[in-house]
């Protein structure tokens, strides 16, 4: 049993798929990365001199799609926390990468720091409703020279779950691979234990930029799963219509499939659904738009059809503070992605169009995710669960509270138990002055005090520190700083 939400029939899926293939064949994609473009040329693809784009044939796309695995393992440092995508189960992760943090003490927005990333990573490790990490804020106080290494190391130290992140340029690849040596004993083990996956966003309309693409290709060659996440904005960097935006999003993804499968056939890949609309009143990216839900549902179905796991933006919002708008936008977008069966839903903890980290929101999103998992789980129908014998026994009137089987099923999780929602009586609520955002902040603070992350071996942590020091001897970073209770 599983609640499902569907939008497209088979014919409509094929219509969008064919539109994307036609776009690749007739318009092509512009590729700033030379090694990436070379891969397509070597595969006999045509360069269109008038537009500077590479046209990609349907044959090549189909050949490359055939080698993409339908299931993707995202391994954790702790094997019991491995995530397998493509099984029909929905997972949740954080969202990369905000530039600001709502300071938990002052409540004010400020540029995000390493101490925020450390705290958010540790808190995410404590949350049941999170399946893996995407470093969710940029530590703006860490020099650029070491930022990628520091962000990744924070992930490896402060959570035992999988780490998904982006890489900025090819110069960062060697040290990142050295991190795999440190953590896995040998980087070649990454093929079977992929503890790191990389996200790379094509630039709509129909472009792949240089540095991140070149670097991600190199990681792909080293068995790092790749999330290709096109982010077309309907009406601005894509057609205003959702059908046109879907066709472009899929074309950009499929061009990524061609690139990465040519670089490393069989590479595990994820279709990142980053599309939404540009808000035509403000000229800004909108994360809270209901159209984002439609793109998520449709692209999830298309992903399933072509046999590639998808990551949807689900727990996303334009709201500037945790509260009503954040709750309804995230709930609508996350619920629809959940019911559509997206393999991963991202967004835990970020607000303000994924620009601002709120620790309170991390707790609220965890609550929401756990409720959605309860809905996803459905319920059983069999004699034990129909309980006809018990209904006959209790008869008319009376109650079930005193029945052992009531208690037994409660313990087995028939009813969800909220950690945050207030279900008490009105007078109790009023007298206690209960405020869910304040309660969320307290819970975050408590979890950060009490939760213990499975520790990384001290020599491994030391090796990571040395690696960072080697990258930039001037850089001073405290990998254990925390923004809580300073």
């Amino acid at each position, binding site marked *: 049993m599983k609640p499902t939400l569907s939008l497209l029939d088979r014919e409509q899926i094929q219509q969008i798929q064919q539109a994307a293939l036609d776009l690749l064949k007739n318009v092509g994609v512009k590729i700033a990365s030379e090694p990436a473009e070379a891969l397509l040329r070597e595969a006999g693809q045509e360069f269109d001199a008038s537009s500077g784009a590479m046209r990609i044939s349907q044959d090549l796309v189909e050949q490359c799609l055939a080698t993409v695995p339908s299931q993707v393992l995202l391994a954790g440092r702790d094997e019991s926390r491995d995530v397998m995508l493509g099984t029909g189960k929905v997972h949740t992760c954080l969202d990369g990468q905000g530039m600001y943090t709502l300071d938990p003490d002052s409540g004010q927005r400020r540029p995000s720091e390493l101490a925020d990333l450390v705290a958010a990573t540790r808190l995410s490790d404590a949350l049941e409703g999170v399946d893996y990490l995407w470093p969710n804020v940029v530590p*703006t106080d860490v020099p650029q020279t070491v930022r990628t290494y520091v962000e990744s190391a924070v992930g490896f130290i402060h959570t035992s779950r999988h780490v998904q992140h982006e890489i900025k340029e090819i110069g960062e690849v060697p040290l990142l691979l050295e991190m795999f040596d440190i953590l896995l004993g040998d980087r070649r083990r990454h093929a079977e234990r992929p503890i790191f996956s990389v996200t790379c966003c094509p630039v709509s309309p129909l472009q792949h930029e240089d540095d991140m693409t070149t670097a991600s290709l190199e990681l792909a060659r080293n068995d790092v799963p790749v999330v290709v996440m096109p982010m077309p904005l309907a009406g601005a960097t894509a057609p205003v219509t959702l059908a046109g935006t879907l066709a472009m999003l899929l074309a950009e993804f499929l061009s990524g499939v061609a690139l990465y499968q040519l670089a490393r056939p069989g590479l595990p890949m994820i279709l990142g659904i980053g599309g939404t609309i540009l808000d035509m009143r403000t000229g800004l990216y909108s994360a809270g738009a209901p159209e984002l839900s439609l793109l998520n549902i449709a692209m999830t179905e298309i992903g399933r059809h072509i046999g590639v796991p998808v990551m949807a933006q689900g727990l996303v919002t334009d709201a500037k503070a945790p509260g009503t708008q954040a709750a309804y936008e995230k709930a609508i977008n996350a619920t629809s992605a959940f019911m559509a069966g997206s393999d991963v839903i991202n967004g835990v903890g970020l607000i303000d169009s994924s620009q601002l980290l709120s620790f309170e929101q991390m707790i609220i999103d965890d609550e929401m995710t756990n409720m959605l998992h309860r809905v996803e789980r459905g319920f059983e129908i069999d004699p034990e669960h129909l309980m006809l014998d018990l209904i006959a026994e209790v008869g008319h009137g009376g109650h079930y509270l005193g029945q052992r089987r009531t208690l037994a099923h409660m313990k087995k999780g028939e009813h969800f138990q909220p950690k945050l929602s207030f279900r008490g009586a009105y007078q109790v609520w009023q007298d206690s002055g209960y405020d869910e955002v304040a309660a969320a902040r307290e819970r975050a603070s408590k979890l950060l005090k009490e939760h213990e992350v499975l520790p990384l071996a001290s020599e491994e942590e030391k090796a990571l520190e040395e690696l960072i020091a080697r990258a930039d001897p001037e850089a001073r970073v405290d990998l254990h700083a925390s923004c809580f209770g300073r």
Partner: protein
Amino acid sequence: MAANDIYEEIMQCIADGDEDWARELAQKGLDEGVSPLDLIENGFTPALRAVGERWDTGSIFLPEMILSADAMKAAVRVLQPALQEAGGGAHDMKTCVVGTVKGDIHDIGKSIVGALVEASGLAVIDLGTNVETELFVNAVRERGSCVIGLSALLTTTMVEMKIVLDELAKAGLRNQVRVAVGGAPVTQAFADEIGADGYAEDGMSAMHLIQELAAGLDPAPGESMSKVA
């Protein structure tokens, strides 16, 4: 036909965002002996500013604004030769140079800002995306005193903004320009750190910021557009 009638038509044509009509009206104005500067100052600029105000109050959508700005651009291209002949023209308008810095091919942010700034009455030169630092410096050499609007969408490319500022200083041009920065990863703190003159978080605030920065520029010789800037 009285000049007032053509101004009314220009008002309508810019509101409609009709490029062909804008070109026709520009030509018609010239044929009827209206000076190109008058056509801009009393026709196209107020018309586009009116559209900008409607967007500011939320009564129209962004694409209407962009279409109107494109129509104005088309008209100015028709008027350009006559303006130069008259020994002045677009070079007298306060100018804003916009571009996305080197290594970054994100286009949309600076394009929206460019259109809004144009609607506010400044001349806009859009250098495009992935712009070599040298091109910003050359633009200042060519135009003289101006505002530069720099955009970056990546944490790795925003550092190029500092390089543009450094190169402007090296070329001895820093005091002739005001530099505004923006884009998703850019913060006020970063703007302060690199010594930019301003930072804005969205298109509308960027337009107001650039207007303010332009107002603070020394008037160029032969300045004639200050009353509309």
